């Protein structure tokens, strides 16, 4: 059973959650935009693309700002079969090797939410909704 630990880790990073509820987003994601996942806003949709190869996440994990109410479209490409999961929103998608998979939802709760894989237990990024 791999769901529980992943869920709980995010839960216990309650600090992060607290920081997010404050609307906190690290200066890091602002000062190093080139290291945050590629994202583009098109017609109000936040596009986020992440690739996982040999247990390495590209771009490296960071925080991504989203406006409350905005639609978020996350596309994950993994080199192994896995499952991607957005905590808090409890949205998930199963990943097939080499095939991009998409999670799309409206970010209607504010806070900081971790996006992770379950089998490889990697954090892909943190979604800061304000």
């Amino acid at each position, binding site marked *: *059973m791999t*769901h*529980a*630990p992943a*869920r*709980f*880790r995010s*839960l*216990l*990073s*309650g*600090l*992060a*959650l*607290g*920081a997010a*509820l*404050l*609307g*906190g*987003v*690290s*200066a*890091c*994601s*602002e*000062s190093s935009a080139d290291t945050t996942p590629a994202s583009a806003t098109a017609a109000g949709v936040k596009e986020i693309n992440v690739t996982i190869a040999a*247990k*390495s*996440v590209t771009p*490296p*994990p*960071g*925080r991504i700002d989203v406006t409350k109410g905005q639609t978020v479209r996350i596309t994950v490409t993994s080199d192994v079969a896995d499952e991607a999961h957005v905590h808090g929103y409890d949205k998930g998608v199963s990943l097939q090797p080499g095939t991009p998979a998409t999670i799309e939802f409206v970010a209607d709760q*504010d*806070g900081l939410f971790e996006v992770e894989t379950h089998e490889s*237990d*990697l*954090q892909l990024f*943190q979604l800061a909704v*304000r």
Partner: protein
Amino acid sequence: MLLAHGVGGRQDLPIPFSAALAGAIIALLVSFAALGVLWTDPRLGGALARVRPWSGLFQRAVSSDAWAWTWRIVGLVVAAYFCVGLVFGPDDVDNPTAGVFYVLFWVGLVPLSLLLGPVWRALNPLRTLHLLAARALRRDPDAGLRPLPDGLGYWPAAAGLFAFVWLELVAPDRATLPVIGIWLAAYAVIMLVGAVVFGARWFDRADAFEAYSDLIGRLSPVVRREDGRVAWRNSLDGMSGLRPAPGLPVLVVVLLGSTMYDSLSGAPVWVRFVQNNPLPAPVVGTAGLLVVIGLVLAAFLGATTLAAGRGATEPRVMAGELAHSIVPIAVGYLIAHYYTLFLLEGQRTIALLSDPLVSGADWLGTAGWTVGGLGNTPAGIAMLQVTVIIIGHVLGTVLAHDRALALLPRRAAVTGQIPLLVLMVLYTVMGLLLLFAA
């Protein structure tokens, strides 16, 4: 790295981060200066005999045997209910066990102890089991096979607290039932065997959760006096009553340092470091936890050693005498850090708790609860976090000042505290940075 990380980027706070930081430091400096001028004699930690006990019916109720047994039975029933999910429930996200253990129990003990004192001592099911076994065998529960060595102090509790925070923050698969079950089984065996060997006093000094609840409970406005009567008291007197013992500084530093590590571990910079590290994540996490606790301890021992140098006090004595001043800081930080977790996951756990076997049951009638913010706004939570951290550090400064007056020669009493003031400022800055910038 961390210092460069957050300052200046906090426009989204209701007040700018630099203002929160400056406000906190000013609060410390002003209270330090005011204390130096106005608070010139040690006045805390006086005999509790002076405090006025409650009167009448209330006093008789809380002093009765039935009162003590009520809470012992509540502790046993709650523990038994918890074990239903732990032992018989499925190991999945809808099992309440992890939420009960890490959120309702561990975090929930903070507000309960702050209001009511060392509540876990009254509820602890292991203490009750030991008491019942001793009664059945017609033995004195306080008498073990051998006396508890004085030199042991709080070291067993400090080790137990470290074992818990390691489980909570680092252990692989820490929210799964086998991991929680094995940890709790080992803890229960060590507690019960220790109680058989050393008597019930073992729980006072070795049970990490009793020690945790007792440390926080010293800030409670109510106290049970030596004579068993319950009274109102000044929280600062309660905190000041925590006397030095071996292992006490490490115990309080583990409490503060582990919460700081928890903040750090949520920061993207730390996540990247762990995921890009060739070493397994639990190894890096263990090292990180030890390093953060080690730095907090080094800062504390450094400051207390410098302060001791101003008087004729041994550094070890000074560290033990000032350990109590760390507790309100740790409590402020625990509240700031876990408030939203307790609010949101606490509600979710209570909903799950109604169906510990995940069979669709609704034993408590709470299964339908939905998680809500209960009127909390991001700005309100931010203000609360800054406020409790500042209050914690100011209380720590007051406690340290009062103790320094008693320990240091009069002419060095204020200047001797400068290292302690620097320590408080350092902890405040680190605490706020980790909370808001990490």
